[in-house]
């Protein structure tokens, strides 16, 4: 049993912290969010230079052969900085899918580009009718000659406006909610028949609704075995959940620290409001939720390689925990900051908004309680 970090991991954390400190204070973050494109491609290049985009990949693909602990470190610090650039989507989720399911050619083509910051990806897995069920798919890819023809619609594809390519889940056989018959495709966003509706999200990111109308794909677009993608998709989403948990921990820690600091300095009735026991206990509860969430984040990141049932339990329990904790910490941070907590100007509300959306990403508390129960 060991929860300590290696020297390299500590250096990694330091370098991410330094980047955030120098380039990603809250005002700079808000400028990025309100810019036309909504992200900063120069920061993306900087992430590549710092090796963050290469962290989880094997050396032969330009990576640093790290693993979930490395991406966890990056995500926690990104959570603290409210970073909007699509690290989770591109590196952890899509990079993970390519790493797990890709052919040798796909891996050696795509992973070095991800690591080098030349390729941004988004994963189009959700559909308007599907809610959190990854297998509830109406999007279909029909065989046509050597390739496929893709038709369907995808919902709230986070990071898609910035992406060059999409990884799209589609049905190659079977009925709407069958677990079999699901395949993954790498689709050029600029391909004929792909139309998008881009919009900002409430937590400062960008997303798209995407329609595929008779999009022609060649055989090489298939990622992994035809019809057998669901287990791969679930494993990659669980890895993304592990990263998301770390991001949530970063958000919660900032909120808890900021709230404690505020209550020590804000005076009402002739004393700091932190003197009031009812508020002290509230902040203790916030602190405990942070600690519990951090524990679960370590747990899930260390269990991603275990067998499927263990991995599912780890991911779902951690996700349920951070959903519950994130809501509490977010709401209380706003409440204890009073009117200031409600403002767009103060960072508190923005962390709260991000935590709210983290709960619904990849399935909310209810969904993961059930998934945990089913796997137990």
């Amino acid at each position, binding site marked *: 049993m060991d929860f300590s970090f290696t020297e390299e991991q500590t250096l990694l954390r330091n370098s991410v912290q330094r980047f955030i400190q120098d380039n990603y204070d809250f005002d700079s973050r808000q400028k990025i969010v309100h810019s036309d494109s909504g992200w900063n491609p120069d920061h993306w290049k900087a992430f590549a230079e710092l090796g963050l985009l290469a962290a989880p990949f094997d050396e032969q693909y330009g990576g640093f052969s790290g693993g979930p602990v490395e991406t966890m470190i990056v995500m926690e610090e990104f959570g603290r900085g409210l970073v909007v650039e699509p690290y989770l989507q591109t590196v952890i989720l899509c990079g993970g899918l390519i790493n797990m399911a890709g052919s040798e050619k796909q891996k050696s083509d795509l992973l070095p580009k991800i690591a080098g910051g030349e390729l941004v990806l988004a994963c189009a897995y*959700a559909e*308007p*009718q599907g*809610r*959190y*069920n990854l297998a*509830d798919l109406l999007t279909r890819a029909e065989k046509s000659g050597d390739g496929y023809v893709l038709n369907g*619609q995808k*919902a*709230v594809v*986070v990071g898609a406006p910035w992406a060059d390519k999409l990884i799209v889940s589609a049905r190659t056989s079977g009925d*709407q*909610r069958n677990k079999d018959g699901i395949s993954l495709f790498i689709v050029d966003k600029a391909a004929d028949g792909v*139309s998008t*509706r881009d*919009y*900002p*999200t*409430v*937590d400062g990111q960008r*997303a798209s*609704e995407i*329609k595929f109308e008779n999009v022609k794909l060649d055989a090489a677009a298939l990622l992994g075995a035809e019809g057998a993608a669901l287990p791969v998709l679930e494993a990659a989403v669980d890895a993304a959940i592990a990263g998301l948990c770390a991001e949530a921990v970063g958000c919660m820690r900032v909120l808890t620290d900021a709230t404690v600091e505020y209550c020590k300095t804000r*005076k*009402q*009735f*002739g004393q700091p*409001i932190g003197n*009031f026991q*009812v*508020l002290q206990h509230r902040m203790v509860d916030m602190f405990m939720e942070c600690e519990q969430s951090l524990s679960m984040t370590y747990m899930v990141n260390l269990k991603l390689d275990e067998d499927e049932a263990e991995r599912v339990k780890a991911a779902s329990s951690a996700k349920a925990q951070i959903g519950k904790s994130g*809501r509490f910490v977010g*709401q209380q941070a*706003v*409440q204890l900051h*009073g*009117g200031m*907590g*409600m*403002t*767009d*100007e103060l960072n508190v*509300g*923005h962390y*709260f*908004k991000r935590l*709210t*959306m983290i709960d*619904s*990403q990849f399935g*909310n508390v*209810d969904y993961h309680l*059930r998934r945990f129960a089913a796997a137990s």
Partner: protein
Amino acid sequence: MDLQFTPEEIAFRDEVRDFIAAKYPAQLKGRRRGDADLTKQDYLSWHKVLAEKGWVAPSWPLEYGGQDWTSTQKYIFNNEMARAECLQLMPFGLVMVAPVIWTFGRQDQKDYFLPRIYNGEDWWCQGYSEPGAGSDLASLTTRAVRDGDHYIVNGSKTWTTMAQFADMMFCLVRTDPDVKPQKGISFLLIDMKTPGITVQPIITMDGGHEVNQIFLEDVRVPVANRVGEENEGWTYAKVLLGHERSGIAGVARSKQQIARLKALAADTSQNGVPLSEDPDFSRKIAALEIDLLALEYTDLRVLASESAGNGPGPESSILKIKGTEVQQRITELLVEAAGYYGNPYLRGMSYEGDNFPIGPEEAVGTAPEYFNMRKTSIYGGSNEIQRNIIAKAVLGL
């Protein structure tokens, strides 16, 4: 004790229902208070229709245009307004300052201001909170110094709702800094066009512009615009806070919101089954409805006690706490029901778009609404302060 409506009450309900159906301004249908695109004119269009009918301020004394309705009729009226999703008028003139004016104002103040409030000629805002005086309102420092027939006011007010539309502000100012904080406060009515007043928008985290900070720099206010005695303003303000609390339960509106939540849940599919049929989710809605039902009957008891001539007591803090908790919980569940579609931020964008819409229409704006409703446990005396009031004034702790 009787929970049934009489035939007369049912006839009254139908009268209200028919009136709304015939007269509610078409351009307001489907709009909610807080909707960023609502203009002053939008609010006033509904205000004027109600004023014409004599229903804009049913709780006022008869001599100023109120109605001699029973508490049941008031209940029915509020229910029908909520049921039809009518835009709620802002309370600052009608509910908050008017009772202070008719209780403590001079005859000429009543004669001038009350009809203007009734007819919507003046839009009022509330100058209470300050950057340094929130929960501890009595520590306010905006200073008014006497200069002949005027006060010269300097300071800043904040969280001032809809001040961007306001013609008038009722304002608590310090006229004597050398006594106990509650003793040296006066209640002034300030014309917002007076030189020296700046209104600076505060954007809230949902992206909306409801509140403002107001800066007052050497603002000359006629002494004639003081309500009641100098240095007695705190007493008047407390009366006003009591009025602010009655009606704060928002039961009828919450019922309407639960109906909206159910509609969204019915329209949201989960594994091919509507979310409304999901046992976990429907249990959450049921728990919420039961909380609301308990609140409704507590509200009715308070209302009945008020009609029996008792002023709003410290028990009304229950209505503030429980009412806002229910309101917040509803929006929490709206976001839950919306799932991924809570995330799109479509302010200023058309829902339909050029080629296709984004998610179910009921999901649009659910998250901003949830964020916005966090204010309810902060404003009007935070819920922590309300619990202190109950602890002290009811339980004697």
